[in-house]
């Protein structure tokens, strides 16, 4: 019959080993998460940058495209109420966009070697004299917000939202 002290020692050894194993598993899991998150976040930044660079390559406003500037600046620019709506964007393709504000309300799922990423864009006028706050009326500054999400980058139950921003100045063209 096994002595009581040996049983106790064995149980204590297994308990200590179990704790070490749990810690080691947690560390391995953390390492894998960091590895995957780092790789995916790199893709998030690339996607955000590419949308911003693409929008920057377009005209500042549909009014200024291949034409002389409007006689009244900034009043002659397209009013924000005329920017594309979500319903209009559903019928358009990315390759149809010709001006900066064409990206407003645009959303798409982009497939990459790292999986699918959900992109959402908002374009609006900002006031340079009021800390670049969002305004409805025309100014010479437009801001683009690009949000990127991935099913594999989660903060709790929801996918984490990554936002990249860029402010464009009409006079810095």
């Amino acid at each position: 019959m096994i002595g009581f002290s040996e049983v106790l020692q064995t149980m204590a050894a297994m308990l200590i080993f179990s704790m070490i194993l749990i810690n080691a598993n947690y560390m391995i899991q953390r390492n894998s998460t960091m590895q995957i998150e780092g790789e995916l976040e790199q893709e998030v930044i690339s996607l955000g940058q590419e949308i911003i660079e693409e929008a920057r390559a377009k005209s500042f406003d549909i009014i200024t495209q291949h034409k002389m500037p409007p006689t009244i600046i900034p009043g002659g620019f397209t009013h924000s109420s005329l920017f594309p709506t979500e319903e209009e964007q559903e019928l358009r393709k990315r390759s149809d966009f010709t001006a900066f504000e064409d990206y407003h309300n645009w959303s798409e799922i982009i497939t990459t070697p790292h999986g699918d990423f959900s992109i959402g864009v908002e374009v609006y006028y900002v006031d340079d004299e009021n800390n670049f706050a969002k305004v409805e009326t025309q100014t010479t500054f437009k801001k683009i917000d690009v949000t990127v999400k991935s099913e594999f980058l989660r903060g709790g139950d929801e996918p984490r939202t990554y936002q990249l921003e860029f402010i464009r100045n009409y006079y810095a063209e």
Partner: protein
Amino acid sequence: MNLGIVTSYIIAGVIILGIVMMNFRVQNSGAELTLSQMNRQYVTDIADMLNDDLSNMGYNVNDVTRNPETGDIRVMDCAQVNRIRFFRNLCETDEECADETRIPERIEWRLLTEDEISTTNPNQRTLQRTVTVLDEENNVVSEDISDINIGVTTFDVQYYETVGSNTNITGLGCGSNVPSVRQLKVTLEVQSRERIAHRASDEGRFIRSVWEKRFTPTNLQLQNN
């Protein structure tokens, strides 16, 4: 023989085996993370150079780069899958920037697909960046070649006729102007030199890091087809 001691020895043996296995896994996980971070750093370094080079293609002092003989816009003159070549004229000093007669440099990025560079990872190739200074007759004045040997396995460039299009164009050559390209997508992959195995009997796998980005250089939008 005391059955209690024998049982304890057996359990101790199992625990020691478990600790050895656990150490192996922890060590592998740490090595994998380290290699992965090294790869990502390599990718970031190359991506920084590409971001600077490709975004500024066609830039010239107060103008777009042009063919000195015809005066036409000449931004890119080579558009292949593993090779891209373009002109740009970036100045650093006030004196350089004031000199409107400066001749643009020709930048080439090319993956040397033929030559293996590593005995441990046969996929690794040299990524070469060449900066060439030409005279007005297109003769080479000087050439600065930088070989990047940090585990690049893929350098793939896709070219698009329309910004935002999903259909890339193929069959573009080298040596003449490529006026139809408006956007390009670069895919870069770096792999580790060594394999990481999850089991002692396993052959293992190379740790990889992939970077992909579409570039929309402003000066490509100024070209006529």
